């Protein structure tokens, strides 16, 4: 199957129908096939008649051709056309409207003949008038007519060497005439007749024959037919290159089939008819397992080599279009039982398990869909068994580096070909798909999620195996899987102070795994993912500094846009969490910095891969949607978006509001946070503002209260029962966060108050300020001092009276505007000078400027691209 997927996506759509026989197969099969046989016979007589007619004409045509009788040929051709029109309904019914091959062949031959005759000018000239006229008209008519069969003709021309079926056909029709064939013999022929058209266009036939295929697959003689067909499809694919080998193989296979058939007969003598066979099917799952017990000849010595050979046979059918995947599974299972019965060793068991796992993966034909839960748990079982086997034997190694020849299945040290890690990775991916498939709010999701423990345990065990005999790179891969299952989980033990000794918190574990990956990974991708997960995990546990340092040291924010989407998603998730962590720790500015980039776009949902948003401008194509769906995070890993937005808005408020107050008259004031600003503006435009309902309204209302310097109202808007339930209670250490919010809101309100109302005071008593904002006097003093030092507040403290004396130098509106103007003119002169300096390289200016911006930024400050962009905007503004 896998080969199939690699080739193209169209196979996916068709393969959906392939599931059907599996469901439909069991009981009605036999009646169905009987019916079919009867109808077949009726159809055949009708069809044969038409075909016979056609064939007769073609025969004549051929004769005419041989004697170069153009006028007769023309007549025959016209006859042929008519006959074919008559046969058309039959063709349409039987062959899906695809012209039968012998017909096409005739057409092609005729065409070739005509064109060669046409090309031969000399002989053409010698023709009689009537003949040449006939040739001309034949040529034209033929040309017109073949247009309708262009596809078939092209197909035919691709490989005209295929055994022409009209012989067979004739054969069958003749046998039909004789009418004395037995049932068994007749059937394959009857089935064979619709075969030719099936070959050319692989898409059309799919649905129709998969149906009658499933119904007849129980017939063992049929399956040999099946294989020839499989061979021909392969041959089609490889054209003529390896036909000989194919044929040999085919022969071999036929032989084995025949042998098997014989065994059927031997073993099933007492069971007279087909129905008897059914009763032997244990589990009764598939239709195709009828030959299950005849795995080996009854008396043959079963040893490892034989089993391996058998396994080779089974897996040779793997990936074929016609292979019944379920039957394969059953066969493998049976083979394993046989191997176990004969004590053929654990290495062989391992090999068989590996093959089973591969077959299980094959079972699900669609890459995008999840496999069925029961199959998935069989998969887990099998992989688990593999691990148990591997762990049980020190000297057993499973690796993809061994070739089939190097395998050591009988004598230790055992060497088995296969890859546990790949199986594990796919298993894990399938698990994620399974989760994504079910509704996250249903019980089903919870049930599925319970399996996560199983997966984690399995990964742990696989890690043990890989640690034992894997290369460092493989260990890295295994660890990364481990990390993937670890990083988003909050470990309550990690924040506890009194940790019982010897217990390893997830932080420690993460540290261990990540460090290994940092040291040993050779591909950058694993390391990047490990770092991001590590940061995420630290952030989750409020280890703000470690998380920050790790991010800054990795310099990921500069390179992440070049990485693959899933890593970018992880980066976004990490940044979101880092922002939350910064906020919890009271680092509002950093929180804002982390979140701004996510929230700016207005679609954090998409950036975090937590759901698709309908797109307005352009519709997503199906492919696009499928790909995007695959990237989505399973629900239990989601980050609460409302929480994220609230944190963002509150931190934006704490930064933006004092800034707005300070720069009321400043021309170069810029928006720190656009989203927040828009929300605020929208609310201010409203004529009537009702009491806030949603989280966003609360944040905006709080911001407006803060602008007035009313810290109490602001705090009430941010921290109240509604908001607690919606947002704050979701945080770890919610009480600390609320206390922090209270403190920060007071401080920023005080600053806003000072900025806004300083001009109405001559002096301000620090004491009364402290009372007003319910803050310790020391804190007020420090805040005011800081504002004075930074020249935000033109005042100085009068120490003996504990007052801030405000200097009457707040500019009037006029003065402020004049200052602005002066600033602008100053900038103009500056930029003039700059331009002059750069004149030599005028055209590179843009590039240089950008480079400058980057240089000026020290890496440790470089929070994210957002700030850089802003800075660049600034520079542009200056110009």
């Amino acid at each position, binding site marked *: 199957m896998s080969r199939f997927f690699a080739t193209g996506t169209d196979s996916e759509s068709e393969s959906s129908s392939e599931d059907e026989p599996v469901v439909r197969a069991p009981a009605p099969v036999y009646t169905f096939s009987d019916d079919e046989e009867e109808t077949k016979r009726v159809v055949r007589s009708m069809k044969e008649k038409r075909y016979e007619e056609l064939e007769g004409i073609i025969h004549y045509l051929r004769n005419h051709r041989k004697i170069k009788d153009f006028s007769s040929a023309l007549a025959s051709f016209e006859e042929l056309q008519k006959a074919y029109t008559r046969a058309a309904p039959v063709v349409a019914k039987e062959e899906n409207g695809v012209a039968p091959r012998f017909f096409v062949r005739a057409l092609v031959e005729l065409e070739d003949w005509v064109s060669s005759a046409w090309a031969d000018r000399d002989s053409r000239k010698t023709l009689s008038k009537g003949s040449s006229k006939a040739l001309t008209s034949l040529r034209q008519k033929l040309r017109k007519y073949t247009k309708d069969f262009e596809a078939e003709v092209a197909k035919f021309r691709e490989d005209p060497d295929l055994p022409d079926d009209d012989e067979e056909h004739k054969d069958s029709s003749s046998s039909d005439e004789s009418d004395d064939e037995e049932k068994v013999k007749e059937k394959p022929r009857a089935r064979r007749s619709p075969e030719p058209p099936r070959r050319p266009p692989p898409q059309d036939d799919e649905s129709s024959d998969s149906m009658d295929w499933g119904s007849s697959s129980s017939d063992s003689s049929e399956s040999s037919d099946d294989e020839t067909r499989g061979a021909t499809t392969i041959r089609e694919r490889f054209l003529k290159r390896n036909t000989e080998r194919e044929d040999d193989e085919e022969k071999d296979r036929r032989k084995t089939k025949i042998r098997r058939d014989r065994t059927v007969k031997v073993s099933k003598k007492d069971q007279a008819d087909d129905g008897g066979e059914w009763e032997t099917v244990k589990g009764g799952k598939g239709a195709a397992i009828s030959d299950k017990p005849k795995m080996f000849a009854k008396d043959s010595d079963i040893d490892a080599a034989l089993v391996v050979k058998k396994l080779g046979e089974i897996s040779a059918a793997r990936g074929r279009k016609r292979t019944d995947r379920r039957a394969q599974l059953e066969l493998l299972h049976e083979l394993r039982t046989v191997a176990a019965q004969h004590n053929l060793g654990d290495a062989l068991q391992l090999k068989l398990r590996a093959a089973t796992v591969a077959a299980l993966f094959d079972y699900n034909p669609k890459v995008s869909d999840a496999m069925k839960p029961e199959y998935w748990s069989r998969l887990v079982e099998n992989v688990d068994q593999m691990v148990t086997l591997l762990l049980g034997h020190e000297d057993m190694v499973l690796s993809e580096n061994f070739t089939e020849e190097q395998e050591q299945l009988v004598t230790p040290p055992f060497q088995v070909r296969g890859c546990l890690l790949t199986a594990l990775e796919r298993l894990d991916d399938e698990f994620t798909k399974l989760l994504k498939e079910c509704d996250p709010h249903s019980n089903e999701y919870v049930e599925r999620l319970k399996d996560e423990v199983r997966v984690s345990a399995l990964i742990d065990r696989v890690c043990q195996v890989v640690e034992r005999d894997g290369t460092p790179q493989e260990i890295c891969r295994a660890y990364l899987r481990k990390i993937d299952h670890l990083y988003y989980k909050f470990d309550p033990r990690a924040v506890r102070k009194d940790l019982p000794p010897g217990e390893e918190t997830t932080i420690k574990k993460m540290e261990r795994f990540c460090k290994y990956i940092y040291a040993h990974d050779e591909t950058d991708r694993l390391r990047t993912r490990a770092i991001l997960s590590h940061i995420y995990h630290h952030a989750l546990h409020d280890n703000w*500094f470690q998380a920050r340092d790790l991010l800054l*040291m990795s310099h990921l924010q500069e390179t992440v846009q070049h990485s693959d989407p899933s890593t970018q998603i992880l980066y976004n998730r990490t940044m979101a969490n880092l922002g939350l962590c910064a906020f919890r720790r009271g680092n509002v500015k950093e929180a804002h910095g982390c979140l701004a980039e996510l929230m700016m776009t207005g679609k954090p949902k998409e950036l975090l891969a937590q759901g698709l948003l309908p797109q307005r401008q352009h519709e997503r194509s199906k492919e696009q949607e499928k790909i995007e769906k695959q990237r989505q995070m399973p629900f239990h890993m989601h980050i609460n978006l409302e929480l994220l937005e609230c944190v963002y808005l509150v931190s934006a408020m704490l930064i933006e509001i004092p800034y707005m107050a300070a720069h009321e008259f400043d021309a170069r004031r810029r928006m720190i946070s656009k989203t927040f600003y828009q929300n605020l503006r929208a609310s201010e435009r409203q004529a009537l503002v009702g009491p806030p309902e949603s989280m966003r309204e609360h944040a905006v209302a709080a911001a407006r209260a803060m602008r007035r310097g009313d810290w109490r109202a602001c705090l009430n808007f941010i921290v109240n029962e509604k908001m607690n339930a919606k947002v704050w209670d979701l945080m770890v250490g919610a009480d600390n966060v609320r206390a922090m919010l209270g403190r920060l809101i007071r401080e920023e309100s005080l600053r806003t108050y000072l900025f806004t109302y300083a001009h109405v005071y001559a002096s301000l008593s620090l004491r009364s300020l402290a009372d007003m904002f319910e803050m310790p006097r*020391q804190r007020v*003093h*420090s805040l005011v*001092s*800081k504002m*004075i*030092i930074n020249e935000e507040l*033109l005042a*100085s*403290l*009068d*120490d*003996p009276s504990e007052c801030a*004396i405000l*200097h009457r*130098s707040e*500019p*009037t509106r006029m*003065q*402020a505007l*004049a*200052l602005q103007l*002066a*600033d602008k*003119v*100053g900038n103009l*002169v500056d930029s*003039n*000078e700059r331009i*002059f300096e750069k*004149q030599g390289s*005028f055209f590179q200016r843009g590039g240089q400027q950008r480079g400058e911006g980057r240089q000026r930024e*020290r*890496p*440790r400050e470089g929070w994210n691209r957002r700030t850089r962009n802003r800075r660049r905007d600034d520079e542009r503004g200056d110009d």
Partner: protein
Amino acid sequence: MSYSKFDLTFKIGQYLDRHLVFPLLEFLAAKETYDQSELLQAKLEILSKTNMIDYVIDIRKMLYLDEDTPEDIKSRRGIVLSQLQELQDAVEPVLRLMQRDDVMKTVETMRDPKTLINHLTTNKEFEFKVEMIDSMYRLAKYRYECGNYVESASYLYFCQLVMSPTDKNYLPVLWGKLASEILVQNWDGALEDLTKLREFIDNGGAGATASNMQALQQRTWLVHWSLFVFFNHVKGRDLIIEMFLYKPLYLNAIQTMCPHILRYLATAVIINRSRRNALKDLVKVIQQEAYTYRDPITEFIEHLYVNFDFEAARRKLNQCQAVLLTDFFLIACLEEFVENARLMIFETFCRIHQVISIGMLAENLNMQPDEAECWIVNLIRNARLDAKIDSKLGHVVMGAQPLSPYQQLVERIDSLAVRSEALTSLVERKQKTRNQDIRWGTQEF
């Protein structure tokens, strides 16, 4: 003593050579912070891997008063001496050569090691062979281990001259030279070596920067070793700021490997009055690393420049004094530190306040009111402070008045006209030159 928790000797010791740890231990012994016998034990431990046998014997005598020196130590002494002799014999010609001043002079004038070697080998009189360089290096190392730093330094100097920078021993030679110079307290030489070593590491010399990890380690070592130089050399105080704070590579090394170095950086910034502008950067670094390292000195800066909490800053200043007293590197600049720290507090104070009561000031500066008044008067007299003392109320009144908006405006637009004019004239001149060369002029636009 309670301040031993701020003692960095052990942290720093990890990054120093055995021999360099001695001065630190001596210092600790003198301070009597730790138990004497423990210190002696530590010394013995260190010496065990060196060849300073006599010293070992001395210490053993001090530690185990009544015990005799074990035989193996005595015998080791003999071995060490014979080995030394052996090594010395190997490089006899070079040693003789080094005795001759005239030869050394010519040697020093040659900058290129290749020509130098050429000169030495071709001249039969010197009996110099290339292999001797390695022997010389070994001898120097041995000498160093025996504690003969002066000889070691001179031998290494010679090695340095002869070796090409790609030699595998070049880096060890540089390190050895630096260590020897430090130990003989030749600070000029040490500073020179330090610069050489730094350039070598930064330029990715052989062996120094095989990987980023190694480079980081080398830098960390260099940062620690350089402390000896910076706090003893006259120019060290500028250089330390330059190297630790403004060389991103070293700042990174400090931040990732040894944030405790921030103490020395902070002290250097505080005592360096002319580099006040470095404070801002320092504050940033200190804040960033506050979670991994804090001690009274960094906290002092934090209180003063981040929180503007003068009370806490004053308390920290008290602690700082105690810490400085127990720090090997900083004890020399205690006075300066206190003076400058006071000045910093006062300056900040003045910037914020209009009127300060002398009493409060004195309290914040850890001074008696009279003393404080005297101090302020001195400041005013030296024209470093625009203020008046209101002796009746005991207040200091600041003189500076803020600019009126009008003045601000004038100030801002003052230079504009001149600048624009200069620019126009420049443009005109350029235009003229371009017109002379039309070919280029037309192409450019």
